[in-house]
């Protein structure tokens, strides 16, 4: 079974705070891919990152960083020094090697960054 859990429904922070969005996944496949997408109020899902199951290196892109830990089946996303423009719904997704084209999305975490 494939499943993605984003337990945090909504998070509110004040600008410049750091915030971590949690993502826990379930899969029996040994080869799989994890994604994060951002959905601002305009509605478009914007691709942020893709990680494959063999690459556990953490990744940093500007104020964004991702922590992939296979031992805990987690792929968490941290925004450092948050800004109002980071306000959006963030989705974590799972794609396994043998479920071609079938993305499993989490329910999303709504991030509110207040000035």
């Amino acid at each position, binding site marked *: 079974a494939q499943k993605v859990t984003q337990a945090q429904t909504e998070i509110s922070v004040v600008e410049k705070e750091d915030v971590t969005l949690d993502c826990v996944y379930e899969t029996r496949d040994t080869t799989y*891919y994890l*994604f994060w*997408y951002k959905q601002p109020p*305009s*509605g*478009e*899902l*914007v*691709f942020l990152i*893709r990680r494959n199951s063999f690459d556990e290196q953490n990744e940093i892109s500007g104020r964004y960083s991702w922590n992939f830990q296979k031992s805990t089946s987690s792929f968490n996303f941290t925004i450092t020094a948050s800004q109002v423009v980071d306000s959006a719904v963030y*989705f974590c997704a799972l*794609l396994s*090697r043998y479920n*071609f*084209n*079938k*993305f499993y*999305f*989490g*329910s*999303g975490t709504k991030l509110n960054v207040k000035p």
Partner: protein
Amino acid sequence: DVKVTQSSRYLVKRTGEKVFLECVQDMDHENMFWYRQDPGLGLRLIYFSYDVKMKEKGDIPEGYSVSREKKERFSLILESASTNQTSMYLCASSLGGRHSTDTQYFGPGTRLTVL
């Protein structure tokens, strides 16, 4: 950059009308997808197409049909719109074919209201 466009951002239709939602991608992607997004239900796959004139049902195909006559264009058709089809519709595309594990890129979405 991948560009996925959708014909309308907002659409209001009446019950029983035939509705066409169109999606165009400019990156020569093989795969195109239609999702609907509803509060509390997340993103659900309606149909996807892995080649011209080829399609597969997703999780919720009932009440919908699709058409892919050209590689760059994928249409979602509501033969007789009903109020329970009021939703946000998202189109996506990805590079690979039927057995692909490629990243999906999304369009801006169409908010459809059926009165």
